[in-house]
């Protein structure tokens, strides 16, 4: 078995296993952490395919932003952290093991990945010149030209998502004090301060 084959099976196995754990973990925080593991391994698979741009985007966008946001939301949900702490020691070995595997994978990926030449031939070439340019450049060349339609369509989907999020969550509460810069700037001492003569021994009625 070639090195690439070995890594393919390693990444594929860990991806599937951690995807299973995402849906079977009882603790939502663990589920999100497994999801991150799955993303990392999927990124590894992309690297094996020679799609380094997508691999890095996956790590940056999904792990760096989406999963962290997930984690953030999950932690705001009502999770019983006492129960979590009680189980911590019990799950430490397996957690440490997975952490170790993740670390090992990262180290191996960073230090020793190569794409086998025969694997590269099997990949359907996205554009004819893919062998001559890096695939970041290749994506850049077709994204706004050949695939402009898909790009715009994806933009419309995001617009709908944004409108939807606003429609379903924005509430205009009455009596909420909001900052109004224009009013603040327009204030002068005469409007802001009132000088009163107070007789000694009496308050301001």
């Amino acid at each position: 078995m070639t090195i690439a084959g070995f890594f393919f099976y390693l990444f594929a196995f860990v991806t599937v296993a951690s995807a299973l754990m995402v849906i079977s973990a009882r603790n939502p925080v663990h589920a999100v952490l497994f999801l991150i593991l799955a993303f990392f391994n999927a990124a590894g698979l992309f690297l094996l395919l020679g799609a380094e741009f997508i691999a890095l985007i996956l790590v940056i966008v999904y792990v760096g932003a989406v999963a962290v946001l997930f984690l953030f939301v999950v932690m705001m949900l009502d999770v019983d952290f006492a129960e979590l702490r009680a189980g911590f020691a019990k799950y430490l070995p397996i957690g440490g093991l997975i952490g170790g595997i993740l670390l090992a994978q990262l180290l191996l990926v960073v230090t020793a990945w190569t794409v086998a030449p025969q694997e590269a031939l099997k990949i359907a070439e996205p554009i004819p010149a893919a062998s001559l340019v890096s695939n970041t450049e290749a994506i850049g060349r077709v994204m706004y030209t050949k695939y402009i339609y898909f790009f715009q369509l994806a933009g419309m989907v995001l617009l709908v998502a944004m409108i939807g999020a606003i429609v379903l969550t924005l509430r205009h509460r009455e009596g909420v004090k909001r900052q109004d810069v224009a009013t603040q700037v327009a204030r002068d001492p005469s409007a802001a301060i009132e000088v009163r003569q107070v007789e000694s021994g009496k308050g301001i009625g």
Partner: protein
Amino acid sequence: MPLPAFQDLAPIYPEIFLALASMALLMIGVFSRDEDNPSVSWIAIAILVATGALIAGQDAGARELFDGAFLADDFGRFMKLLILAGAALAIILSFDYLKTAKILKFEFPVLVLLSTLGMLLLASANNLISLYLALELQSLALYVLASFRRDAVLSSEAGLKYFVLGALSSGMLLYGCSLIYGYTGTVGFEGIAAVLENTDRSVGLVFGLVFVLAGVAFKLSAVPFHMWTPDVYQGAPTPVTAFFASAPKVAAFAMLIRIVQEAFPAIAEDWRQIIIAISVASMVLGAFAAIGQTNIKRLMAYSSIGHVGYAMVGLAAGTPSGVQGVMIYLAIYIVMTLGAFACILAMRRGDSDVEEIAELNGLSRNQPMLAFMLTVLLFSMAGIPPLAGFFAKFYVFLAAIEAELFWLAVIGVVTSVVSAFYYLAIIARMYFQEPAADFEPMTAKVRFVLGLTGIITLFLFIPIQFLVTAAETAAGSLF
């Protein structure tokens, strides 16, 4: 590679117009002082009409854009006009409802426009990527619309249920697409068809096709992927339900017909089995499960499941006349459905909606006109001649018989007799029971939609040939 020049984009002008206009409308809504501005809805209707005019004004014949990702042909144009009509009538139905439910927000028509845009693009999608993106554009807007009445528990539940199951079905669809791409090496429908012409079909490809059809069946609410339908139809605001039951069904059928007829004509035997199974299951479930319903919106949900089954009979034939039958069916179906929902919207007492079927008791004495229109629509749904619904069923069953699917046509006829039972039960309630309390008088807009759909249903048999010819030309562009 250079960008396509703007004048080369003529086939997609209507969609570009709709996209830009809905974004402009969004801006109008955001910046107009008035939070609940009904004029936004009127502009939205005008936009839909203008888009329809642009589509109707396109030259006949098929033209591709973006390397075959977008295909404007006669079939697509026919479906698009149906979608636009459904969307426009649904917006007309929504005015008064949104106002009394206190959810009159400018986002409503904007979301309807954007989901309509998704449907139009879906009807033109000619490869797997554009199909998926258009489908998501449509669905995402529909999820939001389902839970538009966000303070009502049922509406939120409907939105969440629709979203979760919809995401699952999208996942299945994508998995199927990835298998199809993996086994054919292309995402374009023509490319897939060409690969299938030259090679034996592989099991993996059929596997992918099954997953794609499962995803599509979910969007169509065909059995066995119908479970979400009654809950979502009941929970969503009624005009939204009317929209769900009309335009998206047409778009989903357009997508289904295009996939099977353009990408998989070579393995018709394989997908026809699946379509026949789904069709029979939908017709049977639609007929029997509706009998026990007491809520009229749930009843309409089961009725729509049944109608999807009937329409699929035509597709199961796999012939041009079968596709023609499906298109005639859809045209008539959206008219009947929107009419029926206009009646449901007319069921109001005070400030609240009434949705129980028992409330229709004795309606013929309180509101004879409403009762008559509802009777016409229900008779038509049951398929009684000379109403429009008869012709719908006639052409799909005829196509099935021509394709020698005799037993499928027999099941269709038997289940329509069974479904006539519950339609007639409602009519019997309206004419032979003691009157329940009176409803609020119908608003002008609801009356307009009810009158329009009622008249079309009653008198379609006179210009039916026109519809048949139009559907024939449109279906011809696929073969």
